[in-house]
């Protein structure tokens, strides 16, 4: 297990991403954050908090579960439980910041975009990612990136968060050391 980001780095990356989001979208108007379950949700919450502190207004927050939109339904043996999507605001005409921890093949993001579009027609969907590990299988890119790292196909990149794991860090693991 190799640590690639510690809690300070994660904190600074999120702060920078928050500034970049505000710069690109010219403030908090018409902005909403949507985290992809499960780790993306924690990051979206933190980004919303930082933006709220900077601007005085906290943008609406949603969560997405992509289980029902996967393209490998017929291949995976142990189906994860579908935990539901919560988007309690109208997405039509809104600039949506989609938040996830790790960008890899791009298939999760593809599914998440489909989920959002089933709720309406956003003005834009932008992607914020803490770690881009490369090896894309779809033409998808992130608009805001915490850190880019090089990885092998058989490695896992995992985000640990205070809320669930007691500490914040990003690690690269080999297949057999998966937690």
């Amino acid at each position, binding site marked *: 297990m190799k640590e690639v980001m510690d809690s300070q780095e994660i904190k600074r990356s999120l702060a920078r991403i928050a500034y970049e989001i505000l710069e690109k979208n010219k403030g908090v108007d018409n902005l909403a954050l949507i985290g992809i379950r499960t780790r993306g949700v924690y990051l979206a919450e933190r980004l919303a908090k930082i933006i709220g502190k900077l601007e005085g207004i906290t943008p609406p927050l949603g969560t997405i579960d992509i289980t*029902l*939109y996967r393209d490998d*339904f017929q291949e995976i043996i*142990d189906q994860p*439980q*579908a935990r*539901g999507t919560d988007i309690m605001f109208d997405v039509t005409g809104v600039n949506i910041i989609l938040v996830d921890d790790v960008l890899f093949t791009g298939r999760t993001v593809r599914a998440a975009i*489909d989920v959002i579009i*089933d709720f309406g027609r956003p003005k834009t969907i932008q992607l914020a990612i803490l770690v881009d590990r490369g090896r894309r299988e779809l033409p998808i890119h992130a608009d805001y990136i915490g850190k880019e790292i090089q990885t092998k196909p058989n490695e896992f990149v995992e985000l640990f968060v205070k809320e669930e794991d007691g500490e914040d860090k990003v690690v690269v693991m080999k297949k057999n050391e998966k937690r």
Partner: protein
Amino acid sequence: MSLKSKHLLGLEDKTKGEILEILDTAKSFRKILDRPVRKVPTLRGITVANLFFEASTRTRTSFELAEKRLSSEVVNFSASTSSLSKGESLRDTVENIEAMQVDIVVMRHSAPGAPHFLSKRIKAAVVNAGDGTHEHPTQGLLDLYTIREYFPKLEGLKVVIVGDIKHSRVARSDIWGLNKLGADVALCGPPTLIPLGIEKMGVKVYHDLDKAIKGANVLYLLRLQLERQKGGFIPSLREYTQLFGINSEKLKLLSDDYIVMHPGPMNRGVEITQEVADCDRAVILRQVTNGVAVRMAVLYLSASLIRPLEK
């Protein structure tokens, strides 16, 4: 997680954990039904056959809606238009359906155990949509789902099922499900419509309506199945209504916190008065909406178990 069997034949052979898993999965599908686009691409490429050997409108429609909202392909097959009327046996019909490479079969049949027979002979997952007077598991599940919306804790909840228990597959599935989740179940109806020995299922039996429903949280009314009364089980509809019909006066005997349920279709003026059917404690239409979500969950969980096994 994940269920032990890809089939849903009845609630008798499901554990409490399995029932809760289906109900929890249904929650995410219920949310989808409130969205502008009430459809998810989950079961693309999966084919579901609806085999209805017995008339049904709402269950078949509910299943079909659930299948379409999951993006599966749907084929319908009903007794009146099928070759059953030309004398084909159940087994031959089923082998033909199998040859068409269907993944899930939803079946209603008048013979108890027909889906069990089917499940042993085909590769597809079988979902029982009602077999004779035996079980109607998806109705049982949608009833449990609806009760949990109002009473999150079923332990010790007082549920009374009133009416024709003898001919009711709904009652049987409800009793299995409610008992497994810890509810306190009582039955009430004329002695001719309550099967002997049903107490063995872990229920109390009453023939006096007022005693049965006193302090109940859930009043579950069954349809008096007019087509099954030729055997002379009740002297007259009028007498049944007088002794077992529910009107607003009767509701006063219930607990302060109660709901009224009915699997439909209702005989207004027989087992339930107009006022009760339309009162704000009646959750009958909510049951119908929840039915689609619960059936989506059942199909989704069954489908998630078929593919890996085939590979």
